[in-house]
């Protein structure tokens, strides 16, 4: 579904990603793990068109996406849930969701999408008239995911969804992401909570200092000694 080939990207003179090739198949859940500064967020920003790669190419469902602007990437079916959630705190929950359905095709399906999001996250329906900034951290993360789903994506990019959440909320959120996935969405997730995320995904990539160091089935990766020591914290 998504294919990156030899992608190099960065900011100004700084190169954050070196020669990265990565695939996500339709229906898969894939994680990218690694220390801070490894280039995980940059990778997602390249995919969603926030920054253009310096070299290399990316394609989605066979169509080249290299250098296409973010709004076009969203229209093709890729939604990005950014690090730190970035909801609109002064808008209501309902208006945040409406913003997610801004594009024409998404607008036409607005009512149906809303129903689907409320079915997945009933708490968003209960709080639809509330200011988004007044939600708890976990609810804000659900809203950020819900807003992404409103654009009717096929692939959802999640950047550190567990950040700042209580352990019980991390478990609940990962259960919800599992349900989102069962609904047929493909998922690419960047996470610092390696132990929990490896339970969620089929495959994972290890990114270190801008280079992909390892790739494998989640169970196999969890067993790798250095991954366990360095990132799982056991």
């Amino acid at each position, binding site marked *: 579904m998504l294919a990156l080939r030899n992608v190099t990207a960065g900011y100004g003179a700084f190169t954050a990603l070196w020669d990265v090739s990565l695939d996500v198949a339709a229906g898969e859940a894939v994680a990218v793990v690694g220390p801070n500064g490894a280039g995980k967020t940059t990778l997602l920003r390249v995919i969603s068109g926030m920054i253009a790669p310096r070299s290399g190419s990316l394609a989605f469902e066979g169509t080249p996406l290299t250098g296409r602007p973010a709004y076009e990437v969203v229209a093709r079916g890729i939604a990005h849930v950014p690090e730190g959630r970035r909801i609109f705190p002064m808008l209501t929950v309902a208006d945040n969701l409406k913003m997610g359905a801004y594009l024409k095709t998404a607008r036409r399906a607005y009512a149906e999408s809303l129903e689907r999001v409320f079915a997945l996250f009933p708490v968003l329906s209960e709080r639809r008239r509330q200011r988004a900034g007044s939600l708890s951290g976990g609810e804000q993360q659900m809203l950020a995911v819900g807003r992404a789903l409103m654009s009717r994506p096929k692939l959802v990019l999640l950047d550190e969804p567990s950040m700042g959440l*209580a352990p019980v909320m991390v478990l609940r959120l990962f259960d919800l992401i599992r349900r989102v996935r069962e609904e047929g969405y493909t998922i690419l997730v960047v996470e*610092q909570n390696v132990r929990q995320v490896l339970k969620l995904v089929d495959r994972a990539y290890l990114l270190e200092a801008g280079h992909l160091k390892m790739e494998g089935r989640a169970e196999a990766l969890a067993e790798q000694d250095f991954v366990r020591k360095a990132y799982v914290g056991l």
Partner: protein
Amino acid sequence: MSFEVRQGEILGLIGPNGSGKTTLFNCVSGALAPTAGSIRFGEQEIAGLTPDKVCHLGIARTFQIPRPFRKLTMLENVAVAAHFGAAKRSSETEARRRAREILDLVGLSSAPGALTTTLGAGGLKKLELARALATGPRLLLADESLGGLDSSEMAGAADLLRRIRRELGITIVWVEHIMATLMRVVDRVVVLDHGEKIAEGGPRDVAEDPRVVEAYLGEKVVLA
């Protein structure tokens, strides 16, 4: 809500998102006045005092999301805190000297003249602690010092909190969600849920308390 922080301890404050941890920090640091009740710091009543007064009495806090002055250098950011935050206003030279010492302590002394925009998540958290420490507190309220850090940065941050207590003699109240690290560092833990204290005690007892598992941990946590 009633509880006590003992001189010289590191107290962990945990609870689900929205349970009142940050509100509690806001009440102690003066950002919010409690509607009822009293907050004592040593012999002094501090409930309802303004944040600057609380800071001058010796209580400093960090924030979940660091917001340094982006157009100032790291040294200047910390010097501002040293200059305005101390009980007795120091000279600019003195504030800068103090800021250098603090940057050294937190491990940010390599480029004091750099802008804060060059810092990653780990560096920003260190700078946040440095700004709080520069005010010369006796009590430090640390709000999610590990949020957004990777495992090696977390180990470094936990070690830094231990050194702040050992080398500066500062008492610490630490709000955190990363249990594996928190539980290794703290002497005692207070657990909040829906604005109420539901448990208090040593890390091991609290981790095994069924109410805490249910409301906060979500599953049994095995402590090393």
